[in-house]
């Protein structure tokens, strides 16, 4: 569900606050745009340092949201975009959807909230998909459902492993029942791909919720997540209303999910490429480049 975006953790001690205030004071007086506020620890941290560390905070390891393009650049030696047969459809003629769509495209510079590529990771050929939450919060409508389905079909036909990085507010409300049905369509795509005995690695990133959690993203042969990622089905607000109480601090965080048995591993972004490379090798995929 789209509203289910909750960043950072609120508890910061007074001492920490004071220390930060001092640091902030210096940094706020530095040339503009060199620092960024971390959602994890609340510090102002140098942008170049964040960049060097794969967009994670040098102070607290908070993983910043990254674009689908950055994700691919970070992981792959080279790649080409596939599955780009695109047009706008308003399946339930939802009032205002087109305008909102245009707005999202303008704001994000994206055509949709997904990027699918065929590329090489340390020489191993694969299909990689990344959702992008700058576009409609990465919510899954028919287009994303179709593209994910085609990605599985493409990979299955060519005996390639597939890698999906999810981030999503859930199903795209504006496409109504058609969005809901993408949960079935994509899950069935996983099933069919599974018949080819190729490897599907699913990595949940912050935040992954709703219909994406309850479909393809939970169906990886190997289930990974980035540290601190919010992962869940129901939104925090809905749950609070239902139980009429507060939620535990680490509720729906990757660490919580691992403890509850739903993740194979939590992998720091800086180790992600190497970790996935090891998995691919172990599953018999070989480098096909010099």
């Amino acid at each position, binding site marked *: 569900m789209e509203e289910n975006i909750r960043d950072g953790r609120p508890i910061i001690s007074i001492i920490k606050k004071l220390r930060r205030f001092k640091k902030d004071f210096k940094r706020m007086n530095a040339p503009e745009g060199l620092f960024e506020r971390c959602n994890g620890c609340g510090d102002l941290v140098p942008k170049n340092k964040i960049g060097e560390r794969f967009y994670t905070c040098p102070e607290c390891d908070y993983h910043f949201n990254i674009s689908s393009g950055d994700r691919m650049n970070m992981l792959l030696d080279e790649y080409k975009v596939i599955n780009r047969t695109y047009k706008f459809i308003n399946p339930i003629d939802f009032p205002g959807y087109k305008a909102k769509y245009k707005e999202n495209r303008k704001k994000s510079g994206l055509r949709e909230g997904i990027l699918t590529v065929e590329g090489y990771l340390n020489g191993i050929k694969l299909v990689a998909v990344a959702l992008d939450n700058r576009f409609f919060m990465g919510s899954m409508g028919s287009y994303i459902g179709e593209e994910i389905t085609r990605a599985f079909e493409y990979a299955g036909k060519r005996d390639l492993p597939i890698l999906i990085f999810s981030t999503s507010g859930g199903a795209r409300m504006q496409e109504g029942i058609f969005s809901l049905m993408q949960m079935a369509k994509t899950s069935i795509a996983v099933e069919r791909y599974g018949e080819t005995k190729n490897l599907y690695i699913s990595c949940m990133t912050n935040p992954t919720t709703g219909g994406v959690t*309850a479909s393809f993203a939970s169906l990886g042969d190997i289930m990974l997540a980035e540290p601190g990622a919010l992962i869940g089905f*129901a939104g925090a607000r809905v749950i609070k209303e239902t139980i009429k109480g507060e939620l535990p601090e680490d509720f729906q965080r990757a660490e919580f999910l691992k403890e509850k048995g739903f993740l194979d591993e939590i992998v720091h972004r800086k180790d992600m490429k190497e970790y996935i490379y090891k998995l691919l090798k172990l599953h018999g995929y070989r480098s096909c480049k010099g």
Partner: protein
Amino acid sequence: MIKELEEMLKELEEKKQNQEAFKIKRKQIIEEYKSKLTPYHRVQLARHEKRPKAKDFIENIVSEPMFFHGDKLFSDDRSIVGGVGYLGHVPITFIGTNKGKTLEENVEYNFGMPKPEGYRKALRLMKQAEKFNRPIITFIDTPGAYPGIDAEERGQGEAIAINILEMSRLEVPIISVFTGEGGSGGALALSVANKIIMMENSIFSILSPEGFATILWKDGTLYEKATEVMKLTAKDLYDYKIADRVIEEDISFSMKGFQENFARLKEEIIKELESLRKKSPARLVKERQNKYRKIGGGY
């Protein structure tokens, strides 16, 4: 809203003289009333406390039902009922989401909102059905999956995803009947079927209208407006080719009306089942998977 119709029919009954004329008149009133139903009314009908619940549908359609319990993993989720029985002379497995008619019942059944153990119980029974080559009929009437801490802890999203995947490859016929409210992934997790049959006043939606309004307009009280744009009625779903059949309803909320609805539905299920049972396991799986492959694929 229903009250209005009830009063009209009561009045008619009091004035009744000739049986045939009464019948015609009654039908006329109901039809006229129906023609005025907005999607909002249909949502209210779908959720009406006097409307038969999934268990009523099961007990009126399945002969000699035997109810089984538990997921063999964690618990027996009372919001899901399931078991075996006959449809005509064919042994079948049935699954239903269980809503109550009173507050007490609803507390017991968690208002028809399953937890992961409910979906896993359903899946267990469906795999049992597959082993013994029994068709599966599911009866859906749920606001959705339960949004609670414990449900999230035990993997609500994972449970729904696994059910969808596993249902898609079961080698027996699956028919899903929407009897009332079909809410969100919680309804989808029990309805990946070869044929979807919807009662005329059942709904199937991406989310409850209240939730929809909250997310899109930050105001849950706008749910009536939401029903107008969500396209969640049986007719909408039929037009979108997601529902395969819509069963006409007598909406007089009388026992007789209910019985007629059950009979129409039963006849339709038996007909669909007959044709599905002629297909090979491989064909059943392929057709079911292809049905969903096509939805929203115009790119």
